[in-house]
């Protein structure tokens, strides 16, 4: 067996398709989307910049979870790459926020 034989298995081809669970996965996605929409209240209300930023962080994680469920429901491997990209870059916004907020910037901006 050569390396080339192994590589295609990691190609993001079709996953194991699980149509019998599609309805269950769909319900779970609905639940996650509902938590996302409910959480928007915290972004709108604040009160501080830190509150808004931590809500955004939670949404990023929820988005990753929804993408994982979508990948399973559709049997599409590339969607896992989308989720992976979101996951690897999940910290960039928070780092940018804290790095550029400056001392005491939380109240100055909100």
């Amino acid at each position: 067996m050569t390396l080339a034989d192994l590589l295609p298995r990691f190609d993001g081809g079709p996953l194991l398709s699980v149509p019998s669970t599609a309805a269950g996965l769909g319900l779970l996605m609905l639940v996650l989307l509902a938590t996302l929409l409910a959480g928007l209240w915290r972004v709108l209300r604040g009160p501080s910049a830190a509150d808004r930023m931590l809500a955004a962080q939670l949404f990023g994680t929820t988005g990753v979870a929804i993408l994982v469920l979508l990948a399973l429901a559709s049997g599409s491997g590339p969607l896992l790459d989308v989720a992976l990209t979101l996951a690897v870059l999940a910290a960039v916004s928070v780092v940018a926020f804290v790095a550029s907020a400056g001392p005491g910037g939380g109240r100055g901006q909100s």
Partner: protein
Amino acid sequence: MDPMVIFDAGLALALVALSWAVLASADRFASVVLFIVLGLMVALAWVRLGAPDVALAEAAIGAGVTGALLLATLRHLRGQPEAPPSPAPVRWAVGGMVAAVTAALAAVVVALVAAPRPEGLAGAVADNLAMSGVEHPVTAVLLNFRAHDTLMEVVVLLVAVVVVWAIDRGLAPAHAPQGPLVDLGPVQDGFARLALPAAVLLGAYLLWAGAHAPGGAFQGGAVLAAVGILAILAGRWRPEPRHRAWARAAFGLGATVFVLVALGVGLGPRVAYEYPLTLAKPLILTIEAAVTLSIAATLAALFFGREPAGLTVPNTVPNTVPSTARGGRP
């Protein structure tokens, strides 16, 4: 009822509501956070529309570049008063224009639903995919069938960074960011040591995957740009004047390789970008690798926002509470 129908409806409503909230929010910071969330929702919407390539680009740009760019912009704006609202006639004119565009789009959408579904170019792409040198139809279109368009997009990015550097020469002292960057402390340092190589790997993987699956130069480049942004934010890398020659080379590399391939192919019996079948894949991968590097360098430079030319280096303040401040706290 299929739960996905409800999911799609909820997603669509959320997109409209979020767009409204971004524009209507009185708080600048809330607007930025809402815009970041909107980017996430748009990525999900692209997935539901069956366009994982676009979703991947939106995820990389939205999560990695746009959020950081807008938050850095807030830092530049700090201490400046909010702009006064535009005069009423201007607002009404803009509102009328937006309403007209919306009405026109709605009419088109309604007409499209009624009209018979057009053939489109998907069949033509699928028929000729074997001649393109790659297995993924989106990459075949971007780097082979419509390579001229992609070249123009690369040139647009190049022009953007040239203009940013040129503008900065005129108003460098006034343009320097207000307030110091925050020192993020040891936890961030450990994270960066793990995350930066991991993100570099992901960027390279997306570039490689583009030949046969969603991915490619733009997605890979955006992830690599996020690496640069994270490195700048974390203070692990600071652009300096002596880096400028390398930066210029990186900005121009993609467009240069792209044009050289066109000339190399076009000077023979073929037209530009009509690659010989045996060379198609190596040529496409060469172009994509060069364009990835250019996109990464350009987006990171746009985030940095100015030519690194001997400006005063902002000193840092620690993110942890210094003992003196703790004592002075009420």
